[in-house]
């Protein structure tokens, strides 16, 4: 009953003010973190085929981390996999970043048609199917073709950072293969090797799909990756580092040490922004937590003088804050997703949408609740007098 009595004294105006502040803060926080998460995940989106997301998959890449600069020998891979049991499927792909028609950067994916058929049930909108023997042919993803107004038979010029001369290629087909392939150029493996400036026998990465999780863990252990860490990661990028003739596998988590590998996008900047944003927001949340008590200080002090303990007052206000936070997070999520659909942001041609995972949502909710309640806990209910208002 005491709780109802306390809450009756909290003014509606102060509730609106505090709720609006929490709503604004959580929306800003989720927008910033959502976009950062989306940027952070872009490598995985490009490297991991959606169709294998639920399967135990090892992506073998090189120490370069960024798929556009990674280089792995297929012979080394075959050697590594020679004793591996129950490999369901393995395919190679080459990813290269190029500059198209003097206009913008785009990714070229070299892949065999049969592999593309498995990872993305593509269809040819115009032109002919991917032909691995054509050395001057390129296939263009649907969205990029629309954006750059490219048609079958057009000549496109690709400038590759790994070649000293531009490549002049003929558009042989427009492909609809879904995300992310619709935002890329697709070519035969041999042409992509030429664009990437590497000899035959080298690829950017290999995707190894295992029949069972047990085989996947056995394989990972053989590479020197600990079972307990692998179970946390669910899937892994094994990066091979060539040290002389020795090859050392590194697991994905260690890769943050490698910041800019030639043209790799520095991921740590995103982590740093997240840290800094969280720190700044904590100051705001602390003050919001305090404000629900300070705005109603006159009424609350009267209550205190009538014998209601400050702990009871703070518990009641904490419940109000918790309800406000839960509601505002829900509303912020809707607002952030709506904003993401309206605003078009791209990176290397890929559209960037807000990605808020359950983990981020939970962490953000706990973070907001924690700092707001800390703010509330630090307020002195008794003896509090506003000086000027």
């Amino acid at each position, binding site marked *: 009953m005491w709780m109802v009595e306390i809450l009756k004294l909290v003014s509606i105006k102060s509730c609106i*003010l505090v709720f609006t*502040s929490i709503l*604004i803060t959580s929306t*800003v926080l989720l*927008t*910033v973190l959502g*976009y950062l998460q989306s940027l952070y995940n872009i490598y995985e989106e490009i490297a991991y085929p959606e169709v294998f997301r639920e399967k135990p998959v090892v992506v073998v890449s090189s120490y370069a981390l960024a798929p556009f600069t990674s280089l792995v020998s297929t012979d080394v891979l075959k050697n590594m996999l020679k004793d591996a049991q129950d490999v369901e499927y393995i395919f190679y792909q080459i990813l290269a970043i*190029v*500059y198209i028609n*003097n206009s*913008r*950067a785009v990714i070229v994916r070299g892949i065999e048609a049969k592999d593309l058929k498995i990872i993305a049930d593509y269809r040819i909108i115009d032109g002919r199917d991917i032909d691995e023997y054509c*050395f*001057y042919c390129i296939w263009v993803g649907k969205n990029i073709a629309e954006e750059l107004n490219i048609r079958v038979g057009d*000549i496109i*010029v690709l*400038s590759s*950072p790994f*070649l*000293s*001369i*531009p490549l*002049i290629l*003929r558009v042989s087909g427009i492909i609809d293969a879904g995300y992310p392939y619709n935002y890329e150029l697709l070519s035969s493996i041999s042409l992509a090797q*030429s664009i990437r*400036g590497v000899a035959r026998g080298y690829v950017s990465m290999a995707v190894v799909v295992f029949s069972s999780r047990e085989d996947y863990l056995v394989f990972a252990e053989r590479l020197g990756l600990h079972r307990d860490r692998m179970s946390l990661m669910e899937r892994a990028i094994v990066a091979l580092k060539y040290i002389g003739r020795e090859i050392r596998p590194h697991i994905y988590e260690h890769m*943050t*040490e490698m*910041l*800019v590998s*030639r*043209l790799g*996008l*520095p991921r*740590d*900047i995103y*982590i*740093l*922004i997240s*840290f*800094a*944003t969280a*720190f*700044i927001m904590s*100051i*705001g949340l602390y*003050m919001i937590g305090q*404000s629900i008590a*300070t705005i109603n200080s006159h009424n609350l002090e009267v209550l205190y003088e009538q014998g209601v303990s400050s702990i009871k007052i703070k518990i009641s206000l904490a419940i109000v804050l918790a309800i406000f936070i839960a509601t505002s997070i829900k509303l912020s999520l809707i607002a952030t997703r709506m*904003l993401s659909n309206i*605003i078009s*942001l*791209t*990176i*290397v041609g890929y559209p*960037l949408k807000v990605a808020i995972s359950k983990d981020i949502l939970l962490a953000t909710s706990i973070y907001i609740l924690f700092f707001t309640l800390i703010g509330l806990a630090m307020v002195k209910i008794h003896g509090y007098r*506003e*000086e*000027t*208002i």
Partner: protein
Amino acid sequence: MGNSLRALIHTFLALLAIFLRSRVFILFVISISLPIAIATVLSSSIATLYRQTELVLDLYSRQSSVYVDMPSYSNCTVIRVLYLDILYRDKNFTIQMHSIDNLNIYREITGIRISKQMKNGYKYFLSIGRGVAELYGIDVGSDIAVCIEGYCINRTVVALHDGNGYLGYIAITSGIDGYGHTVNFCRSYHNYAIRSIVEDLGKSIESIAGFLSIATVAPYLIAVYLAIDRVWNLYRDEVTVLYNMGLDRISLKLCFYLAVLSIACIGILYGVSVGVVALHIGLWILKLLGVYMFTISLPTFSSLMIPITINLLTITLSVAIIIGRTGDGF
């Protein structure tokens, strides 16, 4: 004049003092400082990114490359790109052919090497890339049929050339006009592709950061308006006293605006400082976690200009609306 200026300064200082002592001051400063601090973090990150990309570009700055551009530059050569069907013995395949006017300039620009060549006695130059030649067993002196749009002519292969993967799969000839596309190959004294890609990536990241800065500042603008509204209510009694003492309305409104603006400037400076401190705290945490990190660049004024301008404009507009709404009622 002197007296009225002194009165103005005193009024401004009096309003500033009241403002600084009130709790609204904190609300007002937070609603300005927090978004500016986040915008500073984003801006500093972009500045750091640019510094890193400069390092990448420096590494590749000494590499020359070829790019496609208008033919107006002296270091350019025009080539005609055709796709031809080749008939050789019982084999039939398509090849990309570069029809050129001057072999020496073409060689200089593309860096191809003629590895084998007939000495004399040919009318038209025709060189086949070694990659294709090895694939189809073509050698210098081989007679091949070259077909364009169903019309075939016989030519003799007079040379074989080496180049990187792509150039090893094309044919080079002279004297074919009227077909295909013309392209201008120009020599650049830096790595054109790397520079272009890095700049393009930089622009993408900058636009994302710019959007996030505005998205951060925008919701707080409502809080700025509400805070100014509260400040105005707080000032009312004091303003009435000052008005009754003989100060005119315009001077009072001006002093109020200047007081709010001064606090806003402090809030902006405070926000920038918090942003820089927060970045360094983030950097320190990352180092503590064992993640190697580069030195953070300070934010550039140009990148912070938009959020700061938005803030100052909102303050000006809010003051105008709030004073206008009140009219002459004090």
